[in-house]
């Protein structure tokens, strides 16, 4: 039988990105092998997001403008949020599988391999649902841009890209908190659905339509307003109408970074607790 070999040095960060790409590609290949499964997974993503849009369309048909925002402008809020959500689902959506991975004992296996645990969670299976989310988000963007009468300068396009990235990072940060809580309190997995529903139900509209307490909650508590509303306010010229302070329209990226940092710290702390208590 083969002799044991000495441990090689841990791979460099670049190697880990390559590793993530390899696992994702293999997962995608396996998902594509069964076309019916693939089609169903895409359809699930499309159906969910279309339901959200249909609900919004019904509201807009009754109220063509909300708090001074017209249909195209409101669609920009939901488009930024949905695109951020689609990218989150594509790269990090497997975080929602943490409860399942813990229950099945697969999480333990991740911790016995020489690769970051989170990387292994993110790449555990190909997130086909995300394709549906991204398709609907792209369609929503298309409709929104056709409705908006605005000039897209380089700065505006860069701001839009940053807003989408911020929405992705913000959702990652919030879900990291929940995944960490799952390690500490097994009953907290329903928070994943709660966050998804809350963002879908409240994240697509101008903040001004909600009572002050919700405005504060979605700005300072669960800051989903930074995943669509605040950056859209700057892009559409509604900066002076945002609650609290107009400065908030520029803070999507820093808030997202802050939430991510807090999420990572919580994850590490709860993982250490999990290692002490099993």
């Amino acid at each position, binding site marked *: 039988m083969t002799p044991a070999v000495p441990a090689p040095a*841990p791979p460099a960060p670049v*190697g880990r990105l390559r590793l993530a790409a390899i696992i994702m590609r293999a997962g995608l290949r*396996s998902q594509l092998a069964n076309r019916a499964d693939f089609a169903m997974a895409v359809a699930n993503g499309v159906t969910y997001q279309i339901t959200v849009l249909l609900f919004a369309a019904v509201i807009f048909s009754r109220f063509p403008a909300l708090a001074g925002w017209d249909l195209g402008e409101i669609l920009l809020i939901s488009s930024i949020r949905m695109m951020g959500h689609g990218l989150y689902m594509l790269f990090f959506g497997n975080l929602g599988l943490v409860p399942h991975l813990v229950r099945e004992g697969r999480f333990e*296996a991740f*911790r016995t*391999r020489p690769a970051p645990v989170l990387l292994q969670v993110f790449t555990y299976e190909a997130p086909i649902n995300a394709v549906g989310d991204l398709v609907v988000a792209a369609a929503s963007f298309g409709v929104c841009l056709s409705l908006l009468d605005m000039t897209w300068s380089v700065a505006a396009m860069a701001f839009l890209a940053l807003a989408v990235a911020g929405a992705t990072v913000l959702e990652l940060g919030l879900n990291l908190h929940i995944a960490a809580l799952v390690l500490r309190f097994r009953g907290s997995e329903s928070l994943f659905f709660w966050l998804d529903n809350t963002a879908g139900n409240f994240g697509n509209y101008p903040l001004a339509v909600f009572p002050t307490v919700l405005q504060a909650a979605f700005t300072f508590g669960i800051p989903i307003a930074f995943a669509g509303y605040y950056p859209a306010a700057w892009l559409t010229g509604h900066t002076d109408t945002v609650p609290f302070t107009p400065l908030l329209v520029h803070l999507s990226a820093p808030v997202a970074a802050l939430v991510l940092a807090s999420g990572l710290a919580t994850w590490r702390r709860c993982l250490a607790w999990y*290692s*002490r208590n099993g």
Partner: protein
Amino acid sequence: MSGTDHGITVTGVTKTFRTWDTADAWSIRRPLRRRRARRAVALADVDLRIERGEFIGLLGQNGAGKSTLIKIMTGLLLPEEGSVRVCGLDPYADRERNAHNMGVTFGQRTQMWWDLPARDSFGILRDIYGLPPTVWRDTLTQLDDVLALSAFWDTPVRFLSLGQRVRCDLAAALLHRPPVLFLDEPTIGLDVLVKDQVRELLTRYATTGDHAIVLTTHDMAEVEALCRRIVVIDRGRIVHDGPREALADVTDAEHTYLVEFETPPPALHLLTADVVSGEGPTVRVRPRPGADRAQVTAELLAAHAVRSVVYEGTRAEDILRTLYGRTARQSPAAAGGGGG
């Protein structure tokens, strides 16, 4: 490099788990009461040293602390007191470096990628462990020779039978040629043919003298076939650590001979053994201290016409039964093991 740099050293490890008094969990007064917490001892001051080339059987009843000890040795759990070194590394603090040195299987819980063919999982593991392609290919070929993986390794793991999946998991644990192996119930639920394949593979690894292997199992036949050294853990404490043969001395387990005579024998007065029981031609005798097997057998053959003699009482299973029973009697009120 010292010997322990290749093996496992566990020093003074203690682990407890907090449990809650659930006696009044459904009482309507519960919201007003503070539930009482207590610490269940899973491991108590455990010392263990396993050198390279050793193949040990880690035995114990359910809840004795085996799984807790394995989890601590693999870095999955942190001990409250004491320390663990695997190939000179702290398995928790040096998690990623330590992972290169160890292979782990977790019973029926697969570590493979569920939707991928097993061979793709092996490929991913090659990249995770940074194995040179030639080393990976050679090792996979050798594992395939024993475990016959190629017959099904292009099938997604979720479609594999339990036996096929366990073989894949074992291969996945060995692919990076780790010097330390933790095998938690590797053959549970397998049919005899697959068990034989797994045992053959493990025997090959053991004979290289290049690995420290820890096997936990309830299958005593497996222990007898594979392990020369046995560590028995009970209520979080190591109650035996030594060669398998020495286990019988620790327990004072009854060594008996079941003798089937041609006809019911006359009253037996033997110099080397005492009669324990007798019914017709069947007699059970216990050897006297100092009497060896040959002496007892010779005296039985001389006493009456013998049809068969069966030597009983030193099977690991019988010894463990005795040992568990004894420790249960000695400490009936001891804190129960919180670990598995």
